[in-house]
């Protein structure tokens, strides 16, 4: 705990305090990294990527609300006529860095699992 405080303030720590991300958060960032979406769009994206990882609608919207609060994503009211009540989400600079950091973390873990024999070595 003490270390975390003494290092606080550096950019890197600010990113790391978000890690690890929950799967739903990672999926949201992944979708938004490709461009702005509204909520249902994100769900469709996730469905398209991996059918088994689709979160509950409520879970995802709660994650969206929290990620807006913490500044990983931004929300703007839709400008489409007749669609003013919908929010459109876009990833922020920080969100992008967090998503990349999380991807690196997962990659490192996967690699470690392979070295340790938990996963099969990737066929080259």
């Amino acid at each position, binding site marked *: 705990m003490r270390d975390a405080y003494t290092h606080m303030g550096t950019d890197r720590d600010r990113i790391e305090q978000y890690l690890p991300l929950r799967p739903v958060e990672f999926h949201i960032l992944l979708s938004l990294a490709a461009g702005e979406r509204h909520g249902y769009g994100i769900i469709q994206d996730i469905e398209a990527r991996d059918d088994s990882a689709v979160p509950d*609608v409520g879970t995802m919207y709660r994650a969206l609300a929290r990620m807006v609060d913490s500044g990983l994503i931004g929300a703007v009211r839709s400008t489409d006529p007749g669609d003013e009540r919908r929010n459109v989400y876009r990833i922020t600079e920080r969100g992008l860095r967090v998503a990349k950091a999380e991807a690196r973390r997962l990659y490192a873990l996967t690699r470690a699992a392979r070295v340790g024999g938990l996963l099969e070595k990737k066929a080259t």
Partner: protein
Amino acid sequence: MTHDQFLRLSERWFRLLLRTYPADFRDEMGAGIVEAYCGRARVTLKRNGVMSLAWLWCSALADALRNGCGERLRPAVSWRRRGDWGRDFEFARRRLLRSRAFVAATLGTLAVGLGAFAVVYTAVEKVLVAPMPYHEPDNLYFVWRDQSASGGLSRNTLAGPDVADLQHARDVIEDAVGMQLSVPTLSVRRDGEPLQTLMLLTSPQLFDLVGVAPILGRGFAAHEVGPDRPAVVVLSYAIWKRLGGDPSIVGSQVWLSESPYTVIGVMGPDFRFVRHSNLGPPQEPDVYLPFPFHLADQHPLNPNLTTFAALVRVRSGTSPERVAAAVDAVARVVNERTPQAAPAKLYATRLQDDLVAPVRPALMTLGLAAVVLILVLTVNLSSLLLARAAERDREFAVSRALGANGSAVVRATVIEGGVLGLIGGVAGALLGSWGARLLVELAPLDLPRRNEIALEWSAAAVVISVGLALGVIAAVIPAVWALRASLASLLATSVRGAGGSQRLRRGIVVAQVALTLILLSAGGLVARSFERLLAVDPGFRPAGLLTFRVAMDPRLFPKREDAFAFQDRVEAALGALPGVRSVGATAALPLSSSGPQNSIWGWQEAVAIPGAPGNIGDAQRDSLVAQIIAARAGYAESMGLRLLAGRTFERRRSETVQEAVIDEQLASRFFPTGTPIGAAIPFRGKSLRIVGVVKQPRLSALHEDGRPQLFIRAEDWVGFMPVWVIKTDEDPHALVPAVRRAIRQIDPRIPVSSVQTMEEIVDDALRQPRISAVLIGGFALGALLLVAMGLFGMISGSVVRRHGELAVRLALGASHQRTLRLVVGEGALLVVIGMVIAIPGVYAAGGLIRGLLVNVSPWDPITLSAVACGLVLVTMAACYVPARRVLRIDPAPLLRQE
């Protein structure tokens, strides 16, 4: 149904499920969630048909329940995880400092309320709950003989052989000791100044039985009992300190009533041998002595010798039922041994229960009153915090519009309440520690374990925790109110003022009125009971009476003539003192029935009057157990006993005729018709002639007749009169030095002790009811003040809020008076609702305090209606004063402005 209809139905279902989420989340995300579900529903219906749509509905329900509840709990959870306590407390501190008047008023109320709670908690905890300073005190029982069937005490002492039988029982009863009190004098040197002491004669295993060892020396050995025992004595810590506190006292000699004894031990300061009142006056024994006889050798039949209190220890873990069975078995042994006596009924009561039985109703009532007071305090604080939250609802709206989440609002209110409660608790604990000291000063001398009452850290911790809990609980209602309004509704209501908070405040006022009425009715009943108690006729006139004890040790007066001569000289010397109107002596002073004089010189005995008109022919029921009180001539006049017939004892005494004075109870029982004067009572082989009838001087309680009393002439029967009474027209205290001088001149070996005026004795008998009345009355008035404040605040808020509406009413022709009635009526309605709700509570409270009331029904209609009227008057005044602002409303400017 077509697909479109299914989809519309689905959308309605999804919208309904949105209600599980909190309002602000719903505003922000609701549309998205419904859209996402509708999208899924469309796809599902198209691909898999209606059945899978039903499945989607169910999973949406599960999703909504899980995430909706989760989202509602999130403020609390996230604050716990990431909250910044320092910052939150800093804000609370600043906010509270900004409104000092509010803080001062709230803290004052809390401190007084919690202080009262602390005092009551301490007393209840110490007296009723805390274990006594003995080893496994739960296994200690007193055993009493129930003689109520034959008109005797229901809690009478045992004969020596009965105690010996208990000692031999050895089933679940591990051991038993007998105890008896005496009042010898003690001096360190043979010719030293005598101190009057209280001595406990007991079986040698007393200290082993209670499981406490002396701090110096040793306790009694098992063989140190009986006629041949060594002359050994154990001192109490207090008397040891009074004698100088020298540890080398062990092994040295002291003189008890002129006989030498060897000190073998000194008990520790914590060894408070708490006696039952049947055992003696409310003071600790100074010296402990083993019996100079064997209990089993005592006469089993003479009822006048049944003077041993029995204390037994039962085997650990024995249930009270098994103890009762074991005692019953002993009673059978007793009855087999003495078949000619009326069958003895023995019963056991746990030491602590036995001890606190007389004060339990008072303490239970006070405890309940304190709990109700805490509730009233909580409700009151809640209403104050709600008012503050309502004042700040614009601030809440703005801060939430600027991005503060709901938890910030909750935190603000809860921390404020918690801080107030915590500080109030600390202040209450401080006040309570003074209050506990005050209680000990005020408490009747015979409040069990009175000297152990002091506020300790543990009690202070409880009071502070109660304060904190009270503050937090009180803050929850306003916090929830502030949270549940969504941003939009908050902004909307802030234009009109706080409608929701007013509804809640009304509810709070109703609750306050109900709780207050319960407390007030209890307080009213207790006060009325106390008033009745002050008005009762105790059967004597306490004004101008000085009483004191002159202990005459039998060893100093081996011949009865010497004793009588001494008493005559004392009487003459006292009568010659300036200002003395009359002098008397008695064995049993009124209201001191628990004194040792009763166990030694006053006694109970069955009285029968053959040939009296009240006899019904049944020998058992024609004998009445009466208190036999020896008194010298002049006692009745000095004490101011009310003579109903005949005369009292005269100075001139006939050697052949033994005179007696009976009380009205004996007179009406045996002589319902005709006069008792001249009738003869067989008494100890002689015959007493009744010369007079007096109204009974109350011996034990001020308010109720005790056992019938039979006064016998001291000179005929006993040589030793312990209590002297002087009637004077002046201040009785001024006589004390002259009295001491007079006795010392007659015999310097005789100590004068227990100097008290009769008014002080009466006062002491009134202490417990007075404390109860003052405390409960204080609680009730405090609650009344709180409810008045609550109503005042609510009505003033209402007048301000409805200013516009009232102005319009006035403009439309309503008179000021009518408008005033409208506003006052708002408060009156709440009071009436509160009072109606309180009725079951008042009924229950009456039942609970029944044991405390003297000559007052727990549902006394006069008291209860007086209390209700008082509540209505005060609350209506609290409504009327702020409502008068209506009279100052001028509709014109407002109408112009509109």
